[in-house]
């Protein structure tokens, strides 16, 4: 690689050198006084310094400039297809109906292995559920109370301020139950994975019927081309008709995957609707403000910019004028 790049570099120098020589000759011919004796020295100096400069840049790029890939493409996983997510457009909110369906998919499918530890029940009120629905949902779970007078910790039904409970007590329990693989927490998973929504959608819907010929799949793992390393502990979970949506949407695999991905994007960015709404307002006011500020600046400076300063040298003699001699008539 180095040899090849340096070869290419020398070829480039060759071109540069002939150009330089021609230039130098042209210069020499125009300058009648300079002799030809110093010409080859100058040429050599010019050529060698150019070669040194280009060569050091090439060497530096070769050493430090090339991208370093830690993994092979198979280890990286197949690049996820870019889907036209409606909620990722600049002026679109989440589809809250989809959020509600996605939450249902999470509760009925994902939550048996994956926690959602950063989402309290109060946040789904007013985004995808009514207060009563969320309360009923929270009360299905039990939480520890504060220690009572005897120091005992009792159980109480959940409240809106409680967080969605994790399926396992701790990471060790989760690993033990899942063949040593830890199901990641899903609260921020859309932000935490390269490719975001596209990756998770591709992963959920990308399980082939059976692994392609020649693929090595360890026992206990499943083949998914989108997962880095292709061997994923999670099996395919979404099948047509797995859940029954209360708004009558047909629960196909891709529909469920889309809904749950949008829901997971909401858990990662619950402020997105507000952010986009505010962003557009700020851009609108800000652009008007910018235009006005340009106008006001020109207005304020117009008296200064159009000022005319005039200096008339004194008529008498050839003395060098200096400012003290400025005068008006």
């Amino acid at each position, binding site marked *: 690689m180095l040899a090849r790049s340096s070869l290419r570099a020398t070829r480039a120098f060759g071109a540069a050198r002939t150009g330089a020589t021609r230039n130098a000759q042209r210069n020499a011919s125009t300058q009648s006084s300079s002799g030809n004796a110093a010409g080859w020295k100058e040429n050599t100096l010019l050529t060698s310094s150019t070669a040194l400069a280009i060569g050091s840049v090439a060497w530096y790029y070769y050493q430090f400039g090339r991208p370093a890939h830690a993994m092979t493409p198979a280890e990286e996983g197949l690049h996820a297809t870019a889907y036209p997510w409606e909620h990722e457009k600049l002026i*679109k*909110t989440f589809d*809250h109906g989809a959020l509600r369906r996605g939450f249902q998919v999470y509760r009925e499918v994902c939550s048996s292995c994956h926690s959602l530890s950063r989402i309290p029940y109060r946040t789904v009120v007013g985004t995808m559920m009514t207060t009563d629905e969320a309360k009923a949902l929270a009360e299905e779970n039990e939480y520890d109370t504060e220690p009572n007078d005897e120091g005992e910790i009792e159980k109480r039904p959940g409240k809106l301020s409680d967080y969605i409970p994790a399926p396992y007590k701790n990471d060790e329990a989760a690993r033990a139950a899942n063949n040593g693989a830890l199901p990641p927490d899903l609260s921020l998973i859309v932000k935490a994975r390269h490719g975001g929504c596209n990756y998770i959608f591709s992963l959920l819907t990308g399980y082939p019927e059976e692994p392609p010929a020649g693929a090595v799949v360890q026992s206990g793992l499943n083949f998914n081309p989108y997962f880095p390393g292709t061997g994923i502990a999670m099996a395919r979970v979404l099948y047509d008709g797995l859940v029954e949506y209360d708004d009558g949407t047909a629960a196909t695999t891709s529909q469920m995957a889309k809904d749950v991905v949008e829901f997971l994007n909401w858990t990662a960015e619950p402020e997105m609707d507000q952010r986009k709404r505010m962003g*557009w*307002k700020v851009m609108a006011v800000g652009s008007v403000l910018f235009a006005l500020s340009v106008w006001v600046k020109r207005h304020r400076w117009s008296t200064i910019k159009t000022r005319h300063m005039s200096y008339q040298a004194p008529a008498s003699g050839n003395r060098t004028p200096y400012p003290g001699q400025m005068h008006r008539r």
Partner: protein
Amino acid sequence: MAGFLANFYGQIVKRNTTFLASIFIGAFATELAFETGANGIWDQINKGRQWKDIKQRYMEADE
């Protein structure tokens, strides 16, 4: 038009206090109008996607 402008100038702009006061009142009114208008446009663009558009379905189902 010119008469109106001259009147407006004499009444409001000439005195700094009234000019400043009218600027702040105007800013307040502009903010109200802008917020209402911008939110209206936003809701129009996102019609049917926000919770307030679909909650009616589930509120009724509760009762």
